[in-house]
């Protein structure tokens, strides 16, 4: 499904990595590893199509990316909070879905927030939530947005023990339901199996 070959990237004068290749199929996940500054985030941004690669090819369902189909199948959560501080978690979820052109009824959105442990905070502005709770609002999008490929950059940061465990469960469920995931993280991840890519 996802085939990457010969990927190269440089920042300014420095070559970050070259000739990176891997492929992912249904139910598989990839752990991108490396030291600080080795290009993990750059790799993720190349993969989702935010920045162009110096060389190499990324194919999704045998089509070169970025295509509309790829974007429909993809969810990318990066370092940024990507939630609006002045809106409530519920508004954030439903507006994000509306922008993506996805119908989302309020019950499904509420269920996602409850699953992420935000019960009773649906109607508060995000600005009063803690850093970890803001992160959970973002992660709730994994449940409200149907996507095959999850690309999560440092998604386990700023999460407490319970949330790390929960995210591990969500990823495992997603994989067993026929999804795929690409994750970066410094620590070992609570998800079984997985391919490794060291930059």
């Amino acid at each position, binding site marked *: 499904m996802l085939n990457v070959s010969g990927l190269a990237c440089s920042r300014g004068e420095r070559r970050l990595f070259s000739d990176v290749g891997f492929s992912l199929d249904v139910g598989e996940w990839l752990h991108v590893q490396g030291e600080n500054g080795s290009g993990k985030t750059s790799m993720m941004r190349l993969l989702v199509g935010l920045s162009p690669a110096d060389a190499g090819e990324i194919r999704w369902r045998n089509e070169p990316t970025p295509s509309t189909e790829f*974007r429909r199948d993809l969810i990318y959560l990066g370092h*940024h909070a*990507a*939630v*609006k501080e002045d*809106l409530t978690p519920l508004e954030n979820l439903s*507006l994000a879905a509306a*922008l993506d052109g996805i119908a989302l009824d309020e019950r499904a959105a509420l269920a996602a927030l409850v699953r992420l442990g935000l019960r009773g905070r649906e109607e508060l502005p995000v600005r009063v939530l803690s850093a970890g709770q803001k992160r959970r609002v973002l992660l709730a999008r994994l449940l409200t947005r149907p996507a095959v490929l999850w690309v999560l950059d440092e998604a386990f940061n700023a999460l407490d023990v319970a949330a790390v465990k929960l995210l591990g469960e969500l990823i495992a469920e997603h994989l067993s339901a026929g999804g795929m995931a690409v994750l970066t993280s410094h620590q070992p991840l609570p998800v079984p199996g997985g391919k490794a890519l060291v930059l």
Partner: protein
Amino acid sequence: MNAFFATVRRDLLLALRRKSEVLTAVFFFVIVTSLFPLGIGPEPVLLKKIAPGILWVAALLATLLGLPRLFAADHVDGTLEQMALSPSSLGLLVAGKILAHWLLCGLPLVLLAPVLGLQFDLDAPALGILTLALLLGTPLLSLIGAIGAALTLGVRGGGVLLALLVLPLYIPALIFGAGAVEAHIAGLGAGGHLSLLAAMLALAVFFAPWATTAALRIALE
């Protein structure tokens, strides 16, 4: 198209939660136009002559004031990345943001202009032409301004740079917008000016969101 309206609704909702930002530009417009009679003197004939120019220049600057915020907040918190990766076309979402910007920063100026025009002794038909010219011209300002806002996104000294990039491109809108009212006062009829403004607006509606989208993708790289 639903994504377009969702973007408009989202930006209006955000502005509603933070009213001060919108009101600043409107107050700026009111204050700047009121300063001119104080600087020039209260002579009605002179004020009537320069009124269209003053109101238009003030509208230009007031629009400029709101432009840096058009994409900056979404850029900083990562929402813009999400928009760029959304299954909806980024161009459509950008067009929605531009429309929301006009509703928040342009439309209030259009509605206020006749009231401020009274300060300058403009008669009712001239006020009508002024309002109509602003109604055609302010969306044009938002559309052109969005290109500049996208180009200067996350750039050092972005606000001042934005003014330098955008103001020369605003000149045709200023000339035809203020010219419409002047032509009407001079008894020449404003039809030509207004149709040229409308033509430029039509051109910008097709061209500007596309250029803005390209600039945003570059800014996100």
